[in-house]
């Protein structure tokens, strides 16, 4: 279960606060997955008590956008801490799906990759099994193929430290790279943080989704949770 709250001493009008929180959550807490299970209890709330002397913020206020951006950034940090603490997690993975015709499709594809047991197992085993990433993209439940054109798709592993080459191309414009540098792939996959970059080449929308690997410890924890 995901629970959380954000509190501030700003005075914020209630509907503006709801707009602020809902927008922040859609780019943070609703873009994470540890195991693909949605709890019956998930709740994020925000309180603004107006304890500081300031003009009450509503959706027309000059500071509305700025405060909204700060709340979104806060929510992203809190959401990512949850993924970093995923049960048994040894890897923190950013799935970055960009240049999509629609945000909705980018999110569906990112979430599908993030919830693939086989992708998550390979990440735990530090196995550069990128075919599973393609497979997950291929079964994503998209309404149509406006955002997914097999001849334009690019998939890469991105190193999250300062080592180079930073990007390891796995699929280039729909063509699988059979001669990938396996040693470099292993180096990248041995890092605690990893980025999987999917460039759909069909538009300009993008979605960042955060997930973790699937380890033996996850099964151990959840095999006898009630105890």
């Amino acid at each position, binding site marked *: 279960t995901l629970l959380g709250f954000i509190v501030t001493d700003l005075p914020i009008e209630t509907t503006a606060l709801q707009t602020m929180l809902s927008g922040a959550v859609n780019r943070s807490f609703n873009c994470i997955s540890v195991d693909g299970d949605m709890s019956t209890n998930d709740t994020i709330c925000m309180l603004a008590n107006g304890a500081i002397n300031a003009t009450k913020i509503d959706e027309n206020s000059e500071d509305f956008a700025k405060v909204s951006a700060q709340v979104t950034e806060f929510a992203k940090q809190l959401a990512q801490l949850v993924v970093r*603490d995923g049960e048994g997690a040894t890897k923190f993975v950013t799935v970055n799906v960009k240049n999509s015709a629609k945000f909705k499709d980018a999110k569906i594809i990112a979430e599908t990759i993030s919830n693939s047991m086989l992708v998550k197992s390979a990440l735990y085993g530090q196995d550069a099994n990128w075919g599973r990433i393609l497979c997950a993209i291929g079964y994503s439940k998209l309404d149509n193929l406006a955002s997914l054109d097999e001849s334009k798709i690019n998939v890469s592993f991105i190193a999250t430290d300062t080592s180079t080459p930073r990007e390891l191309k796995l699929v280039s414009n729909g063509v699988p790279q059979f001669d990938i540098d396996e040693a470099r792939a292993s180096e990248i996959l041995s890092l605690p943080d990893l980025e999987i970059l999917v460039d759909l080449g069909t538009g300009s929308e993008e979605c960042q989704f955060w997930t973790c690997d699937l380890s033996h410890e996850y099964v151990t924890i959840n095999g006898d949770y009630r105890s």
Partner: protein
Amino acid sequence: QSASKTLDKYAQFVPKSGVFPKGYEVASLASGVKKSGAVDLGIIRNVNKSQKSSAAAVFTTNRFKAAPVLFSKKVLETGSGEGVDAIVVNSGCANSVTGELGMQDAGKVANQVNRLIGRSDGTLLMSTGVIGQRLQLDKISKGIDTIFQEQKFSADFDGWLNLAKSICTTDTFPKLITSKFKLSDGTEYTLTGMSKGAGMICPNMA
């Protein structure tokens, strides 16, 4: 090996100090619901009286919404998001798939806090833990009374960190972030946030 991972994460992600917004007090204690004896009950309350607070929330879209979710939704609808002055969090028992009895238990917890803060409909609830078991009301109710009678509220870093610990279940570290910001006219304000979660995590809240 897992201990070493826990150590790394705690050292890496848990702050050692923080800045906290004006007008809030926090408290937490071990009510006995968690078998381990760890803190499992927390309350954050708004003590600012200069104006009514504003509250907003997003909730699970799972069809089988737990009692605290249904109860909190109703509080926000009833008050249109105004005048929420307390959030009660309990861990160890999710009060989920508990039907009408679970709703009654949720109401009892909230009404006890409402009485103690002198409000009606001023309390939101959050629960997490085992699904399908009822709240151990005796322990939680006694814990709430202890918090108020022994004046356990504070506004310092340890108080906020312990509140972040009181909502944890299989988490290996408390998740707390705090920061000060400035409005365009230079007015300084503070955001503080906390979260919990380690399993059953793929939210789609609305």
